[in-house]
């Protein structure tokens, strides 16, 4: 398909939607009795089709978030119209193969559901969006939709926060639809900071309805539509030293890195900390 002719005027509801699909196999097998990956895919594919039907100039890009890698699985602006649905599934399969091959052989014991590489796919999505920004003055309005279910990996805290801030600066909202069992603190923060919508659907077999009602809205319409707001945001951070989730810790006043224990020197910026007055934790703890 040829790129849009510059003489075409892009109306203000044209959007570029980056969908990040969580393909963590451990997560999907653990959730199997309630919701299967195939049902999930059918809802998502129907949703993608409806997005493309809303406006001729809408674009959709799908990224898969695995546990060892992330990759582009579908791009609506490349290839001809008829090839769309057909190209997504084989690419997804390919991706799953690749991801499997990257995992270590001896990790056969199931010890809980690990986290998927959300930071990686967020970064890739943001890079694609930057490229679109630089393609010229006429471009659709980008936004990111994360369909995520795996638990948060505290080790990715720094990378995810950096992507969130970069999205905030480029004014790209990050919407989150959490299909897992527990809330995701990272995605709550992401949606809160970038001005996106965070939703944890109560009924997963109505996922398409959720997607179509809430997440299909373009950025222009969001100014006058009332979308669900979360009750609150979990702002807990992870410490930089052990990557544990903490809500009370020490902060370097130079670079704002977070530590769970008193340290002599900041590992990020190298500044030395002063002596703590007493060993009493209530006296020297700061938020």
């Amino acid at each position, binding site marked *: 398909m040829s790129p849009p002719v510059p003489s075409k005027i892009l109306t203000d509801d044209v959007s570029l939607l980056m969908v990040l699909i969580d393909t963590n196999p451990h997560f999907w*097998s653990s959730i199997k009795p309630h919701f299967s*990956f195939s049902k999930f895919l*059918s809802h998502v594919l129907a949703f993608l089709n409806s997005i493309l039907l809303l406006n001729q100039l809408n674009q959709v890009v799908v990224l898969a978030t695995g546990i060892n890698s992330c990759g582009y699985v579908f791009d609506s602006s490349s290839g001809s119209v008829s090839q769309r649905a057909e190209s997504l599934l084989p690419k*997804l399969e390919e991706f799953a193969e690749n991801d*499997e091959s990257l995992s270590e052989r001896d990790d056969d014991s*199931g010890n809980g*559901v690990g986290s998927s590489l959300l930071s990686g796919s967020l970064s890739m999505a943001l890079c694609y969006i930057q490229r679109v920004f630089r393609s010229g003055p006429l471009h659709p309005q980008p936004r990111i939709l994360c369909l995520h279910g795996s638990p948060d990996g505290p080790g990715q805290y720094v990378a995810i926060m950096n992507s969130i801030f970069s999205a905030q600066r480029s004014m790209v909202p990050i919407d989150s639809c959490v299909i897992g069992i527990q809330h995701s603190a990272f995605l709550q923060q992401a949606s809160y900071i970038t001005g996106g919508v965070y939703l944890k659907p109560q009924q997963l077999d109505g996922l398409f309805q959720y997607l179509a009602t809430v997440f299909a809205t373009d950025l222009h319409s969001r100014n006058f539509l*009332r979308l669900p707001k979360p009750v*609150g945001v979990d702002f807990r951070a992870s410490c930089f030293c052990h990557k544990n989730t903490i809500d009370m810790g020490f902060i370097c006043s130079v670079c704002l890195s977070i530590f769970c224990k008193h340290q002599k020197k900041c590992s990020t910026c190298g500044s030395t900390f002063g002596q703590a007055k007493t060993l*009493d934790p209530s006296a020297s703890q700061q938020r």
Partner: protein
Amino acid sequence: MADKQQQVVVKRARHKSSVKDPGTPGVLKLTKDRFTFMPNDPSSPVKHNVEFRTIKGHKFTKDGTKQALLNLTQDQGGNYIFEFENFPDRNVCKDFVASAIALSGEAGRTVPEKSAVPIQDEQLSAAEMERRIKLLQEDSDLQKLHKQFVIGGILSEAEFWATRKKLLEQNYSRRPKQRVALKNDMWSTKPLADGQIFAEKPAVRQAYLNFVPNKMTEKEFWTKYSRAEYLHSTKNVIAAAAEAAEDEELAVFLKQDDMLVNEARKKIRQVDPTLDMEADEGDDYMHLPIQDHGLPRNDNKDVLDSQYEPYRRSFSQHLNQHAAVVLQGRVIDVELGDTRSVAEALARTKHAELAKDASDVYLDKERLERISRMTEIEDLQAPRDPAVAPLSIKDPRDYFDSQQANAFSTLGDTVSGAKQLKCSVSTREAYCSLKECISEIKFQGLTEPTINSEVAFKVLNGLAQNISSNKYHLGRNPNESVLDSLPKITREELLLHWSSIQELLKHFWSSYPITTKYLLTKATKLKDAMSQIYPKLQEIKESVQSDLRHQVSLLVQPMLQALDAAFAHYDADVQNRSARSGERPNGF
């Protein structure tokens, strides 16, 4: 008011039982704490000897009326009416009575307070004591705190007042009393005897003084004035100019008020030039669609000849001047009946002001000095601080919403956090099933229909309810506060505990590090007081209704945390102390 404080006032007066009663003539003697009335006729039963303590108020007739009466009212409803021979007499007595009542009132109230105040170690002047007592009387919350802690023996007087020095000083300087403003009668056409028109429009006043009674009678003057007002109300500038050309007295009313302009100029000059009045978008009056403070500007800016300019009157100017006069209140205190004397009195006061300003050369000099100080030489200045990023003010409702979740996580586990996902499948199997799912779709295609209609309906309902219920959540209505939604008793208790905890913690933390025995005992006493409040807070949390429980916990939680921190610190300190001293009492 008398210039020197008189101890005794003796005046001839008649005592009346009611206003109509002719009264018994006699002599009224006023001293600081009582008044006595002795009738001229010794056989008359009308003798009075009353202490001012029992007198609660006094009333009097206006000067210039038929009788000069003074009515002293008692608490139980009794009153004493005295008629004087003339008004000056009555006024002297009136002022004396007023001060006597005030004095006795204070004395009456301070007597019970003095017994409540414990003996102090420090030397206090009487003025200081009075100030404190006055503060306690005025602020009931402060009084409660004082009673709780000082009389309860937890804090000493000195400590209690040490942190409130500012309050004491502030109270000392008397605040100027509010003065009665003029009635806000912008549109009454009747010339008011209190001279409001003269106060607002100095040109009219000047004209009155000049024309009446030389050129025209008072009635003619007001007729012309009303005509002028009528012309202004029609907003017909040209007609106004025409009539003004014919009648020169009318012209005075129609033209712009030069005296006003001069006054305004003077006022502007008095504004401190060092005031930083930065203009921002809100000051842009030129480009607002609605100008003149909400009044639509008539856009018929017909280019009138300059001869018509003086006859224009702006509504906003009129409004401003009116407001200024109303707020200034009564410039002249005396009640005068005659219009002419009102005008003269006003003119006199204005002249006095002018004279005062003209002679204030010193003020001018000081102002110039200040200006020169403020206009600094720019290139001699130190480099400015690095520019700070502007504040991004967020919608406060977001904050309330977000804090709720924090509360959820601190108060209890997140609802679904307890359930941990268990994956008992090996990696390879997991990937296999994933790939199977993908191929399943490849061959079967998308499910038809994608979604069950009932499910879709349920989802839509749920979403709609969720969105609309968020409207009624906390923090949405800026006027409503959590405290108001609590039952009154709980609210009062919470506020009381909050203020007591603040006070205790302030003193507790200030006594660390403990260097003397005095501080140690103080800290111990405070800690005991705090540990008494602690269970009360717990009780409140548990006793409240279930739908309010969450909000109450949100309020109580930080208090408990603060107390916990204080206790932990105290215990750690005690341990350190005992470890350092090496003494180990039996059993530890």
